[in-house]
């Protein structure tokens, strides 16, 4: 197997004494789509923020293209960041800029391309995500799905080697969500990109993933292909695949509180 493009070793993070990530180890291979699954509070967004260098871990290393992003020079970090495109959950488009200005921004800021070339490339990126006619619109004039696609167009503006999606399906209806999944597959095929998707949408994960990794309470509990994931007998994975009420609704304290609210305190079951 070739050297992974992203390699996480013993990543541990704690906030205010609460362990959010606990010795996470994960390799992401070139040209694969790895979906990082997990429920709310599992640590998947924290993992993503560390992979893209927005936060520094308490311990552990993150190698991107063989470079430790927490110990490299600022110049090396800038170089790494140029090779990683990020599509944030809420798109994070700049509200004061039009859609095409948002998409053209990385090219204007980080390259010496002439303005006409940037305009053509911006149009092409917008066309890839199906927003060729929406370039002049401001972000508030776009629908939720259009915003996410515009964020993807901006993320691929510099043809990155690695593309990262944070909850791409969140807040979208199933049809738009499926369209976005198709776009992710298209990008992988056309751009030879390595794609990391952080999500809790199991259907979306099975549509796009080459491999799936699952986090639970800050620990990586499984990494494998879709088939092995579906066949898993781990109760935590089974609960995610066949959603049944979890510990929150089964808690005795919650049941007791609900009985109190219903005026049933003391009633013998």
């Amino acid at each position, binding site marked *: 197997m070739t050297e992974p493009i992203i390699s996480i070793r013993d990543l541990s993070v704690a906030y205010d004494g609460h362990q959010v990530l606990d010795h996470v180890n994960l390799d992401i291979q070139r040209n694969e789509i790895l979906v990082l699954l997990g429920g709310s509070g599992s640590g998947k967004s924290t993992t993503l923020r560390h992979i893209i260098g*927005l936060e520094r871990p308490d311990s552990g290393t993150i190698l991107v293209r063989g470079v430790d992003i927490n110990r490299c020079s600022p110049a090396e970090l800038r170089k790494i960041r140029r090779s990683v495109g990020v599509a944030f959950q809420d798109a*994070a488009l700049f509200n004061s800029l039009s859609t095409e200005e948002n998409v053209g921004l990385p090219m204007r800021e980080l390259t010496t391309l002439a303005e006409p070339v940037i305009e053509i490339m911006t149009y092409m990126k917008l066309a890839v995500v199906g927003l060729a006619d929406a370039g002049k619109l401001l972000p508030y004039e776009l629908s939720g799905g259009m915003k996410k696609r515009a964020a993807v167009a901006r993320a691929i503006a510099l043809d990155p080697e690695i593309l990262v999606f944070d909850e791409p399906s969140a807040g979208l209806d199933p049809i738009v969500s499926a369209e976005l999944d198709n776009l992710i597959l298209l990008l992988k095929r056309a751009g030879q990109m390595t794609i990391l998707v952080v999500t809790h949408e199991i259907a979306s994960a099975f549509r796009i993933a080459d491999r799936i990794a699952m986090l639970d309470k800050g620990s990586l509990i499984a990494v494998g292909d879709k088939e092995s994931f579906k066949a898993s007998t781990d109760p935590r994975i089974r609960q995610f695949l066949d959603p049944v009420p979890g510990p929150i609704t089964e808690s005795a304290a919650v049941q007791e509180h609900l009985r109190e609210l219903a005026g049933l305190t003391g009633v013998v079951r």
Partner: protein
Amino acid sequence: MNAFEDLGSVVIQQFAYVGGLTGQFWSGVLALPRMLPITGKRGRWQSALRQMAAIGVAALPMIGIMALCAGFILALQGAAELRRFGALRYVIDLVAIGFTRELGPLLTAIVVSGRSGSAFSAEIGTMMVTNEIDALRTMALDPIEFVLAPKFLGALIMVPCLTVMCNVFGIAAGAGFMYLSTKMTLGVYVRYVFDSIVLRDVFSGLVKSVAFATIIVHVGCMEGFKVRGGPEAVGRATTSAVVKSTFLVILADLFFTAIFYLTGWSS
């Protein structure tokens, strides 16, 4: 022991705040050359021009009205006392020197802090909440250069300009008062004004205005960058930006006035 711990914690927090401001200030200074036309990065100068319009041009009517009112109030208050000594003419000195050295820079700073300092923290705070600052960082773009530096350059240019205009409006209010109370003509008033003030009075006011501009921009932006959480955090940052920058402006005013007094600049 707890009181000492609390005091120590507050002192450490304040030192950390000042340290953060200092670091941000130097990053902003280093980014300024990239804002300049021709030699700077493309698009930055236009961004600085937009900030100049927002900080300066849009604030001019409010500065003008406030300076006219403050100038008239100063003349009225001064006249009430000076009239008893038959020294009504010295109202002109009071207004002219008072505005060029003190009131002009201070009034301008308070208006800019309320209008633009709060806007800076709200804008950057919202960008923090919506991950726009994170997006900049992941695109290898420096938020200091992209967001703060155009505001910094805009304020460094426009706050002194507004201060000069504030001086003009304040002194004009004095002219109105002198005409109403003694029928003094504008030509005579202007001659007395130029007799009472010297260039270093104006210059000392402009030095203060540059310092005030720096404080307002950096406190406003820092409060914005510190925002974590949701919209209520943006509201808190906005309030905090105005309170802290107004407090620091007055502290800096005291510092500069004391320096000018001790070095004989204001004699």
